[in-house]
């Protein structure tokens, strides 16, 4: 790795730390802003050094912020990694985790969970009914929904042991249409029958990163590194895929294994993210582009940088959301859709200008 890339990685890591610290100070909801000293003191109390934090209520607030900050960073990292992997395997930089129907699958799973237990996104969204297990149950159903859709799409897209990428793309579109329809129907019926439940389902469609539970954060801590484990086994392969599948195969790439690992890891990461925080659009699409501008096209740097970049991006977006809009802060999915839509448009227009062919 050239020194410039090493510096860029160090810089990105420092940025994640700084943004994480700021998030601990400001928080993800409306509330107290903690001073630097207070954050450090609470940290000490959390780790059992420097005595017990005198303000028990502040300590509780701080510990919740710790969970939220880790959740935001890992959700961002997971979505960006998923996007980076999918853009590589589809050889199309407009691909993103929403493409394969993974996000819709998770949302539908979550909606069913919400209806079943009457719970929402945990914390502020939770109803009285579910108790402590509500968020875990909803997240589990969301995760199962995401993986089921991903598995189904991959199974249908494979023939004779080979996965056809264009077919996969079309199946994703079909899955999104079907699931979106079911979700919309559910919403419509719920709206008549139970407004609160309808709101809870709606909240999954536009994400929520506040008031995450320890169980949800633990899920991310376990699954995001698991997905990242495939990186050494797909990075060079994705580089070789740039010239087309036949070309990569002629150079010795095991196509079936590469596709399975890359799409599998992308699905797992996206499923974990959506199961914990609902649908947050555009992180998976946008972050790989920004990172590519810094680190180039090589996946050995691009994918690890996506992890860091995704964390930084979502932390920054959440900070901007709360600092700029205060009590009127939008749902992260809504805010990113507002920002991401125009970005996507610029991307498409710029691509139109520079189509490279052999």
């Amino acid at each position: 790795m050239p020194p410039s890339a090493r510096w860029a990685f160090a810089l990105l890591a420092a940025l994640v730390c700084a943004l994480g610290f700021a998030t601990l100070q400001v928080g993800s909801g409306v509330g107290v802003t903690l001073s630097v000293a207070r954050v450090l003191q609470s940290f000490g109390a959390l780790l059992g050094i420097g005595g017990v934090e005198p303000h028990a209520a502040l300590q509780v607030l701080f510990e919740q912020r710790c969970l939220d900050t880790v959740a935001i960073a890992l959700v961002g990292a997971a979505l960006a990694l998923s996007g980076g992997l999918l853009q590589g395997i589809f050889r199309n930089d407009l691909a993103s985790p929403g493409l394969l129907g993974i996000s819709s699958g998770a949302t539908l799973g979550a909606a069913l969970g919400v209806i079943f237990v009457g719970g929402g996104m945990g914390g502020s969204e939770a109803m009285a009914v579910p108790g402590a297990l509500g968020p875990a149950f909803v997240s589990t159903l969301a995760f199962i929904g995401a993986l089921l859709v991903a598995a189904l799409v991959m199974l249908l897209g494979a023939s004779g042991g080979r996965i056809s990428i264009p077919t996969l793309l079309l199946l994703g579109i079909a899955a999104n249409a079907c699931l979106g329809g079911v979700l919309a129907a559910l919403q419509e019926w719920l709206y008549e029958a139970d407004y609160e439940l309808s709101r809870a389902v709606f909240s999954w469609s536009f994400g929520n990163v506040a008031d995450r539970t320890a169980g949800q954060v633990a899920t991310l801590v376990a699954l995001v590194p698991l997905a990242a484990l495939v990186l050494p086994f797909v990075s060079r392969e994705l580089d070789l895929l740039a010239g087309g599948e036949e070309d990569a195969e002629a150079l010795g790439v095991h196509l079936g294994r590469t596709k399975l690992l890359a799409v599998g890891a992308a699905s797992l990461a996206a499923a974990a993210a959506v199961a914990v925080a609902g649908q947050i659009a555009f992180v998976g699409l946008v972050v790989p582009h920004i990172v590519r501008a810094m680190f180039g096209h090589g996946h050995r740097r691009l994918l690890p940088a996506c992890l860091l970049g995704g964390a930084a991006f979502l932390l920054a977006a959440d900070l901007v959301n709360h600092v700029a809009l205060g009590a009127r802060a939008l749902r992260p999915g809504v805010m990113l859709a507002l920002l991401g839509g125009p970005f996507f448009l610029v991307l498409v227009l710029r691509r139109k200008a520079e189509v490279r062919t052999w």
Partner: protein
Amino acid sequence: MVRLELARITFGYAGGAPVLSDLSLTVEPGEVVCVLGPNGAGKSTLLRLAAGLLRPNGGPEGGTVQLDGVDLRRLAPRARARRIGFVPQALRALPALRVRDFVEQGRYAHRGRFQSPSAADRAAVERALAEAEATEFAARPLEELSGGQRQRALVARALAQEPDIVLVDEPTNALDPRHQLQVFGLVAGLGCRGRSAIAVTHDLNLASQFATRVVLMDQGRIVADGTVHEVLRREVLEPVYGTHFETGRALVRGWGEERPWVLPWDR
């Protein structure tokens, strides 16, 4: 040094009529085989089967492709890529790489997953660049190159694989005459070093100058297989191509012998 043997191959794309029927072809070490034939004869399909990129239809009637007696289907992709190099006509998309990094891709099958390029890898890349006369533009991005330079970069990458046999699909389409000769000279040079090559081409005269053996295909079958003198004759070519040819002979420097030239001529 390998012997590539296609035995009784029958192949059709899913749901289509057979492209190749009961075709057999054995290539010995040191041979430079040019595969000729009209459009749709099955030349490119044959090349992809030989490269292991397509598999013969299932069942005993599909036939086998063997490398030194080992069925290609039983070779792992990396093991296959260390022995067979494949040069496509063009890539699906242009990778955003400098030529040297592009040629380095040829070392994929030689390198361990967690290894950075070894001295042997770097030496193989430089050797391949030099052989393809690509060293002078090795530091430039692929997208800045002319068609001929890109073709040489593709050939250099296959050479960096250090394969025993190189398969080339119409390598001279975009090249001017000097580079046509150069690229074919490169492919033919492999034969002199005990490796072998199969080149699919429409250029009968390049085949005549560089091939040790010519295979003429028509409608999924081999209709003639032999030396240039045996195959590049009017009686053989005219019924296959359905056109008239003028023929003659000229001295070829590399061989020190006269070889036939053929000219399609609307009489």
